[in-house]
């Protein structure tokens, strides 16, 4: 689903640096969970030839072990290792238009089908203990699309928020929206603001919807905030560092700002101005299926691939 999300300006209290994990913390253990474990897991080489055992380090562990799948009544598939599940998954939901065209349907039907895929994915992520799901619903670059399509997506998103609101509240799902909200319709901006407010204390799972979002815009607005702080004497120019920039990015609304895994559907091999800074060490998984056809099986395949990767962050594994 390419939802158009127009966001109201994020309230200041949400923009202030919350206690969130810096990249270093996300890479290593959290105080409440076990320290990094080395695992020996069967590792299929990406060329498809044979298997070899390898040691996997730098695993992002879930701090809430009580949220394991068994308790939710949906066990993890046998191929997946619970300890190697990503904390934060990002998805570029591409292919609704093509899906509809293949079936001789209008584009709106494709977006409708896409929204069903998203609902299913949110449910699976909740059950399998993934903490954050960020979806690229609408890029800042997508505003050039036909007005009919854009308006349809606005309405679709409004309808979806209204219909899912009860579920978010009852299942402890927090919804956050990032991007330039000023271009969204007023009614949608208000709805989003209310939804964020109502769910801000939910901590089981966070759904971040990137709407009217641009990775470059995110960095520029962080830079503007820092420039203002320098001008106001809050910080010195020399204090500007990676962690200060991290705190000003729009992903400061979550404890896990860096996706471990990025999935893009429809076969396109590019990031298209999605989270740029945040994707520095993210594992990419490109899928040929169109977004409305992306389901549990495809997600499991992406997770299996993710769990076989060696994440070295520039160092060497001995």
């Amino acid at each position, binding site marked *: 689903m390419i939802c158009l999300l127009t966001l109201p*300006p994020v309230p*200041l209290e949400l923009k202030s640096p919350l206690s969130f994990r810096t990249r270093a913390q996300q890479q290593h253990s959290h105080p409440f969970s076990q320290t990094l474990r080395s695992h020996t897991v069967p590792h299929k*080489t*990406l*060329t498809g030839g044979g298997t070899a055992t390898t040691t996997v380090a730098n695993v992002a562990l879930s701090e809430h072990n009580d949220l394991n799948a068994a308790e939710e009544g949906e066990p993890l598939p046998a191929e997946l290792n619970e300890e190697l599940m990503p904390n934060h998954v990002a998805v570029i939901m591409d292919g609704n238009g093509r899906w509809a065209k293949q079936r001789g349907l209008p584009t709106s039907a494709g977006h409708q089908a896409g929204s069903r895929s998203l609902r299913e994915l949110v449910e699976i992520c909740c059950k399998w203990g993934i903490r954050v799901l960020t979806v690229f619903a609408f890029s800042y670059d997508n505003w*050039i*699309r*036909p007005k009919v399509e854009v308006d349809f997506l606005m309405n679709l998103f409004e309808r979806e928020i209204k219909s899912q609101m009860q579920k978010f509240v009852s299942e402890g799902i927090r919804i956050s929206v990032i991007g330039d909200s000023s271009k969204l319709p007023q009614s949608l901006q208000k709805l989003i603001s209310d939804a964020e407010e109502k769910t801000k204390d939910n901590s089981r799972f966070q759904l971040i919807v990137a709407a009217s979002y641009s*990775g*470059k*815009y995110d*960095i*520029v*607005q*962080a*830079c*503007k*905030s*820092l*420039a*203002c702080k*320098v*001008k*106001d004497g809050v910080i010195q*120019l020399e204090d*500007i*560092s*990676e962690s200060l*920039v991290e705190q000003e990015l729009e992903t400061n609304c979550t404890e896990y700002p860096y996706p471990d895994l990025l999935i893009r559907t429809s076969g*396109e*091999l*590019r*990031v*298209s*101005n999605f989270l*740029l*800074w945040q*994707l*520095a*060490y*993210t*594992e*990419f*998984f*490109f899928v040929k299926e169109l977004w409305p056809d992306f389901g549990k099986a495809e997600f499991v395949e992406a997770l299996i691939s993710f769990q076989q*990767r060696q994440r070295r*962050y*520039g*160092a*060497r594994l001995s």
Partner: protein
Amino acid sequence: MKVFLGDLVLIQGSIMKKDDRSRINCIFENFVTFLRKCTFCVLSVGPIPEHIAYIMDGNRRYAKKQNLIEGTGHRVGFLALMSMLKYCYEMGVRYVTIYAFSIDNFKRRPEEVQSLMDLMQEKIEGLMEEESIVNRYGVRVHFLGNLKLLSEPVRLAAERAMVATANNSKAVLSICVAYNSTNEIVHAVEKACEEKWEEISLLNASGSGYGLIGLECIEKDEGENLIKLIDIEKHMYVSVAPDPDILIRTSGETRLSNFLLWQSAYCYLYSTPVLWPEIGFRHLLWAILNFQRNHFYLEKKRKQL
């Protein structure tokens, strides 16, 4: 005597054989180059990328696979790099950027870091030689990154190379060393803030600052005037080249590893399972064909909007 003469004949025979062999090699090489240029002609019916970026991954794994001593993988990798540069410049690709050494790589064992630095220094000096690829193809070399983190001999060699090739204008080779995209962005943000701050101070000093200094810039509107995207972009290390059209990563990993995060926003990402020292012409050809296919699809989509 006969034996001696026989030896001379034998030696003469083997020298002649050697001459023949090198002649044959030369002819073969020229023929292969000719075939390659024909392939480029065919390829150029479609769009040729202006800028290709490489993440040269897999040198160590290659050495292990071939049972070579540590460090040899990187040497073979360097030869692969020279070949790839040759193919790119023959094809008409004007800009090539390579991820030679990340700031994160300093975390490796000191012996490995030192041997890589030594190799880099040796190869940088090699680049300055007459018959090297940079002079043959008129390549201007840039070393991009936080060069202050490099040891002095390497940094000086890099600076000498940049000066020596400053007048070359046919192509550009950007070598990212002690580089990290987030570090680059922070550096650009810092420079942009510094520049704006100086600008405002100057304007205020001359009485035409529009009172910007006195205002609290919490409001988004005032922030709008402060920093723009272009202010940050011009301070990026990699601003010597346009954004890459293709980013090729070898060894099968599909991640950016903090390389060109900003510049690869719309870039075609191509991951190939081949290890860097094993990369060859056919891999580049395949990457370009895929790029061209995708390019046509995107153009079609753009026309529909």
